[in-house]
């Protein structure tokens, strides 16, 4: 194995190697810059600043709520996409994946036009209840879910497709009900995909910026999540912005490490 890699590396042209090194420098340099500028000696004071605390708390609540929402809705969708063959399935999958490539700010505008107070559906809600999603924490959760759920859907769908259906068929022939099969065979077998999908989804929700600021606005304690606080504090309180950035970076690394089998493991 080791020998094989060495001989492969020897055959790589110098140009490819140089560009590869350039790529890794390009990807890591900004992180080094951030780490060097972070006022580590002030971390304990900064962490107790109301603005930082409120952003942290809101980000945790909103990203976990959006993970829950995305799981409840996304796993069944992944199931349908993986296991059924209905007309227009490819179109449905394309639509489900679209937010992954859509600029988040466009997602925010679309959400406003659909769910805002004057939006297509939002105005019905507003007329009935006098309440609208924009500028509220539920609005943040909706924006994060919209952007993050596709990551869960595609990961779980891939897991379901890779699953050998004969395990489930065997359980069924032995008399297990559909729910028992789901609970005792399917879910345990796709657990790695489900975990990975949830981790990706949560990380994406935590980092969501464009759709959130467009749809939910910016108010500390209510809709100002960590990324929004980073963006706004960069002008008035750069130290707090750097610290929040580092916290988000640490979370991202933690997610990667948690999924090392998928992204950091040997090929």
């Amino acid at each position, binding site marked *: 194995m080791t020998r094989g890699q060495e001989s492969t590396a020897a055959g790589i042209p110098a140009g490819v190697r140089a560009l590869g090194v350039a790529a890794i420098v390009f990807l890591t340099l900004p992180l080094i810059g951030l780490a060097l500028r972070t006022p580590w000696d002030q971390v304990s004071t900064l962490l107790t600043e109301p603005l930082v605390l409120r952003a942290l708390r809101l980000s945790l609540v909103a990203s976990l709520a959006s993970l829950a929402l995305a799981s409840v809705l996304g796993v069944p969708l992944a199931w349908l996409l993986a296991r059924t063959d209905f007309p227009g399935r490819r179109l449905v999958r394309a639509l489900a994946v679209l937010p992954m490539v859509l600029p988040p700010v466009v997602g925010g505008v679309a959400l406003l036009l659909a769910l805002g107070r*004057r939006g297509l559906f939002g105005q019905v809600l507003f007329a009935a209840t006098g309440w609208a999603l924009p500028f509220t924490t539920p609005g943040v959760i909706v924006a994060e879910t919209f952007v993050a759920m596709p990551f869960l859907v595609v990961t779980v769908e891939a897991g379901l497709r890779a699953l050998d259906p004969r395990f489930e068929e065997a359980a069924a022939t032995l008399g297990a009900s559909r729910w028992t099969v789901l609970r005792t065979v399917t879910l345990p077998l796709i657990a790695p995909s489900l975990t990975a999908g949830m981790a990706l989804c949560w990380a994406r929700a935590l980092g969501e910026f464009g759709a959130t600021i467009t749809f939910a606005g910016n108010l500390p304690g209510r809709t100002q999540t960590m990324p929004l606080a980073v963006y706004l504090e960069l002008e008035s309180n750069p130290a707090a912005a750097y610290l929040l950035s580092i916290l988000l970076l640490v979370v991202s690394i933690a997610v990667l490490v948690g999924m090392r089998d998928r992204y950091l493991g040997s090929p």
Partner: protein
Amino acid sequence: MTDVTGMRPLVLVALVVLTACAAGAETTTGDPTTAASDGAVSGDVTVFAGASLTDAFTELGTAFEDANPGTTVTFNFAGSQQLATQITTDGAPADVFASANQTQMDVVGEAALLAGGPVVFARNRLEISVEPGNPAGIATLDDLGRDGIGVVLAADEVPAGRYAREALDAAGVTVRPVSLETDVRAVLTKVSLGEADAGIVYTSDIAAAEDTVEGVAIPDEDNVIAAYLIATLRDAPSAEAARAFVETVRSEKGQETLDAYGFDTP
């Protein structure tokens, strides 16, 4: 978008005199006024300007390019506080900075990054923007403090946000905004989309928004007059063209354009 019906000849005469005086006092090198008009300058001018200047400066930029063949003007419109940060922290390669208040111009000034001394080139008034037809029945600043009125303001760091706070504080009105936006145009957008009941913006913004919002005037005694400053930057890649652009803004024609977009003269 252009609306030149509001031009007032008398004001213009006064304005020409004023700008002539101001230009005489401030201009230190060369004769940029003629440079701007006879097309002697060339190059790319990068102008960082407060979001409220978007429409007026875009037109001024086109006029400048027409008067000076070989020049191109590139704008970066955002909250003045963001622009000041980009210039000071990120070393953005800007030639001209136009700020909607003194504070953000000072941020750049204190970093010793200004070339020409900042001069006031326009003023603006605050106005309440509401949905067309004013369904919430907003008539005064006091109404913004009413329960159930969703008010959007610019964040405190944004010039428009700071002016709005000054006006509200002076009027003794406590407003709990539903959102603090990163520039004044975002405030306008939230109102024009109908997501917020009211926002405090500039008079010029309401003129620019045309029919998508309605303006509710704030009486003089409660109003805050915004002062817009412009300066060339020390590290300007196109220093000469930068000075020419500033002169264009301060010229009679430039002031006419600003007036047409709802700004007041310095």
